[in-house]
């Protein structure tokens, strides 16, 4: 369970303060499917980065599974990210010199999981995500949809509590985009909390809960239907 209480994040750009998050309070329950939408520069990326522990707020409290994470050290934050949070990005961010399987294993590698266990867990995901014949290919030998599937496998291999997706379909054609969305929605159906940040209303509308961000504030927070 995620709980933001009056969280602010202020950047100073050229001597001017920019309030990317202005006293944002937001609660996300386990298993929710939530989309964050809003115009460019509205602060939705900052919100996502804060949720993902990549950015630290200037003020306010962030409780992740009941733990106040705003006061954690860098090492503790990294460990928490590793255990509880999965990321996927618009540009996939796969490591070009590693094979699909090695890319998927990266979080386990960083966490110090033994090789045998890494292989078992990544192989299971590779099969589940239909990448069986692609496991030894490098990213430049994969299609966009395949790359994003590798990225998703990488994001969930550590069985995180929440999957944060930043424009997951922004760099894919319609068919591949639809496949990716279906994949993450399936993961959500199996209990994974899913947060999607997007420009694309068509993608955003699919979520059960829609959060609109404008000028660093939550302008609306509605449940579908």
């Amino acid at each position, binding site marked *: 369970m995620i709980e933001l209480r009056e969280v602010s994040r202020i950047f100073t750009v050229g001597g001017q303060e920019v309030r990317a998050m202005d006293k944002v309070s937001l609660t996300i329950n386990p298993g929710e499917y939530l989309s964050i939408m809003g115009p460019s520069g509205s602060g939705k990326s900052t919100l996502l980065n804060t949720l993902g522990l990549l950015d630290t707020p200037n003020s306010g409290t962030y409780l992740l599974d009941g733990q106040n994470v705003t006061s954690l050290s*860098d090492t503790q934050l*990294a460990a928490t*990210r*590793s255990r509880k949070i999965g990321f996927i990005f618009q540009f996939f961010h796969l*490591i070009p010199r590693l094979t699909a399987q*090695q890319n998927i294993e990266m979080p386990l590698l*960083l966490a110090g999981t033994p*090789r045998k266990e890494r292989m078992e867990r990544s192989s299971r995901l590779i099969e589940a995500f239909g990448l069986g014949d692609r496991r030894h290919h490098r990213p430049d030998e994969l299609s966009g949809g395949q790359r994003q599937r590798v990225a998703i496998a990488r994001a969930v291999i550590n069985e995180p509590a929440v999957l944060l997706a930043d424009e997951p379909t922004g760099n894919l054609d319609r068919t591949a985009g639809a496949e990716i969305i279906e994949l993450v929605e399936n993961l959500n159906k199996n209990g994974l909390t899913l947060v999607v940040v997007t420009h694309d209303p068509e993608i955003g509308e699919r979520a059960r809960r829609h959060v609109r961000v404008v000028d660093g504030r939550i302008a609306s927070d509605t449940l579908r239907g």
Partner: protein
Amino acid sequence: MRPLDAIGFALTSLGSNRVRTALMLLAMSIGVAAVVLLTGIGNGARLYIVDQFSSLGTNLVIVIPGRTETASNTAATLIGETPRDLTLNDARALERGDMVRRMAPLNIGELNVKRRGKERQVPVLGSTAALLEIHHLHLERGTFLPEEDMEIARPVCVLGAKVYRELFGQENALGEMVKLGGFRCRVIGILATEGRSLGFDTEELVVVPVAFAQMLLNTSGLFRILVEAKDLGGLDRLKKHIATTIAKRHYGEEDVTIITQDSVLATFDKIFKVLTFTVAGIAGISLVVAGILIMNVMLMAVAQRTAEIGLCKALGAGQLQIMALLVTEALLLSTIGGLLGLLLGFAGSWAAVQVYPTLQTTPPLWAIVAAMGTALLTGFISSLLPARRAARLDPIQALARH
């Protein structure tokens, strides 16, 4: 992250840019090879010199006319006067000490030796029978200088092996006459083939009685007096004995320089050690340059891999882990480069030995350790700055780049 996994990951990173990696390895290995090879040669030279002196025997005291410390700024040297000569009588007086086992006066000059139209220039040593033992010479045939009073200028000579070959070929030389600096003298012995001793090729020597040498070279002085102590412990007393005896005979002046093999040995040992350290230091500079290259290239690598570093952070790597990854990469480079360098250095010293066998260019252990240590240390230090920069990268900005 497990150490082996970190190494594996660093290897994939090194392998992904082969040219860059190869250049860094080259720089590192040249640095290490230079240290190993140069210290090897320096050490070889030192061992060579030490060996040469040891072959003379370490309980030897050498008396040289004139005091080296004062020779350059006395009135005598200014007006071109040499210090008082050492004479045969000085030598005789020295022989009477109770610490003296053997004594040999020594004169040296270059003279023509002639036989049946064959002629050559040879170094001539004038001495006594004791020289054979003191200088560790060996006879091939005949006898050495006769055991008799050193004042007797008996016209006999002992030929070095090469001089013998060149004058006589395969013929018998014992009892034959040669002309030495215009004087006839009889060959009584031939030295064994032995190589070099203290700068003299014993194969090319002609040894004659000291009084005969003084006559041939037209001098009453001596070049050196060699005194061998009965034992090493008596060396200091012997030196004192020599100093007082000479002072007594030279109207109270201590106008000789007394050196022991030990001190000569120690001096040369020191000089060559300093020399070896110096060349090692110079070679070490190339290692530091290699370190700077590594730092430069790693900084570039960090800039190129910004997205990857940001990604690792998003996937759960802390700052320390990011640093550890980059430092591992640099240490791996230094280790592989260093090992290649050792290989190269040893190959170089091996080649040097093939070309010049008397120089045993085995690099000393400290040089190997120091070279590897410097390689690792420069690799480590030069990776710290890039690693810190990587660790502090803002993951959001890093990931925003495409």
